[in-house]
């Protein structure tokens, strides 16, 4: 994906499709070539496992985290961070927006829909898919969820990110086996597969076999993972 012409990357998709990990990695990659870069957590659905969990990485890389003060706290409030407006007001700022899952999460996009569209070809609105998630494992189910997200957020996707993974058990074969799924979605929607995100250590095994591979670093190794 060519970052140079973009100012905004919006990531939306089915619940649990891997948007937050992708958002953190995209922001870090972008910051390597541009400044300033922000990561905006617009998730109004998820109570745990938020972009805030990667705050140390983001701080170290000088990526500004725009996040609700209540993310990861005990307050279960679907709050949009007050700083969100800045990513539209400040034309020097490049931003990745991590949207909550499904149509419920995409609702938060609605109020920004006009401003997102106004960025025209300086914005990418990416549909993140993972065929190993059971409710979107069939392409017709995935397409239905995509339609719900576009309707709820009043947005149009501009590309697909194939984030096929089985968490820590992901093999290169899993990624390669997902290609027909991603190609079907691309054909049905007319959208390009702009990235195939792959855990960094698996990347050599799939290089040349998947379109636009993008390495993912996993920032969350919780204490309870043995």
């Amino acid at each position, binding site marked *: 994906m060519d970052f140079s012409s973009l100012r905004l990357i919006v990531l939306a998709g089915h*619940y*649990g499709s891997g948007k937050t990990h992708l958002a953190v990695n995209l922001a870090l990659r972008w910051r390597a070539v541009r400044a300033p870069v922000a990561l905006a957590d617009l998730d109004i659905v*998820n*109570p*745990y*496992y938020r972009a805030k969990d990667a705050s140390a990485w983001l701080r170290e890389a000088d990526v500004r985290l725009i996040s609700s003060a209540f993310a990861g*706290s*005990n*307050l*279960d409030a679907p709050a949009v961070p007050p700083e969100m407006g800045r990513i539209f007001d400040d034309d020097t700022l490049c931003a990745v927006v991590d949207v909550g899952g499904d149509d419920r999460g995409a609702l938060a996009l609605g109020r920004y829909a006009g401003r997102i569209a106004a960025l025209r070809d300086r914005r990418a609105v990416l549909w993140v898919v*993972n*065929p*190993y*998630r*059971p*409710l979107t*494992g069939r392409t017709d189910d995935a397409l239905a969820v995509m339609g719900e997200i576009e309707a709820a957020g009043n947005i149009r996707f501009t590309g697909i990110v194939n984030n096929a*993974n*089985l*968490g*820590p*058990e992901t093999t290169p074969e*899993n990624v390669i*086996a*997902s290609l027909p*799924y991603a190609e079907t979605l691309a054909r049905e929607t007319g959208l390009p597969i702009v990235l195939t995100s792959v855990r960094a250590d698996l990347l050599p095994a799939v290089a040349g076999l998947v379109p636009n591979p993008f390495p993912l670093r996993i920032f969350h190794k*919780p*204490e*309870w*993972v*043995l």
Partner: protein
Amino acid sequence: MTEKVLMKGNEAIAEAAIQAGCRFFFGYPITPQTEVAAYMARRMPKVDGLYLQAESEIAAINMVIGASAAGRRVMTSSSSPGIALKSEGLSYLAGCDLPAVIINIQRGGPGLGGIQPSQADYFHATRSTGHGDFHLIVLAPNSVQEMVDLTHAAFDLADRHRMTAMILADGILGQMMEPVSLSKPDAADLPPKGWATTGTGGARPHNIINSLFLQPEELERTNLERYDRYARIETHETRHEAFMLSDAEIVIAAYGACSRIAKNAILAARSRGIRAGLLRPITLWPFPKKAFAAAADTARAFVTVEMSMGQMIEDVELAIRCRRPVALCKRVGGMVPTPEEILAKIEEIAGGVR
């Protein structure tokens, strides 16, 4: 495409329930279990099942009583404060000897508490989930895969013993994502539900589902018979996992998410020459008393690791008849113990690094 899929614990419970033949789900949203209801809302219509968001937790548990009385597999789910609201209905389910499955994805308390993970409903689940003398079968998974497997088991146990089975998990397990196999279990050999109120067809006497007994002698007899059944369940249905236990001088007792953290601490302790091991109750009721009693024959001390102020510790002390010291390593309020904190407690008891 593959045998495994990537699921949240909450979603895994819901799909496993559908696989087990549950076609009635009555729920009410509360963090951190809402995905159970959200998944059911999406899936139930596709399998000719019923998802109904009740007007309250209390309404939901009473709908469970109705569906169960009609002989159908039924489930409800909630998190700590919501489970407290269901207490009356759970007691009625027990008084009516009705099978049902209930999910508690625990959060911090008491009161409204918070939405972060907790294990402070152990007493509530194992001692007094409602008024009167009764028990639930309480199953404590520690992975998304076990959330599938124990949900399957919960429906069979409930039907076999005509009682409520609870999955007692916490926000970590409900929210975490792991690869799981959703292979459908073989149908268990279960007794027919001849007691269900499905219509007599004019061919048999009425079945009556009721927890009111007009004669105290009759109520006493039903209580005594129920506890005979509980004794058989204690004998046959107790489950636990042993990890590096056979030569352990310090035995960690932990269930659910804490047991995963404890394993990290045990490996670290072993690397420092301390023989630590894990005894993980998978059934919290019935509690694996025999396994603990046997461990006390060889262990020097026990440590329970809990996200509570110390609740399961009492069952450990009772099971080993206080023959060994039992220490507590705890975090509460939504905080999660770290392997380092557990290791420090192990080293303190072992008398420092050796």
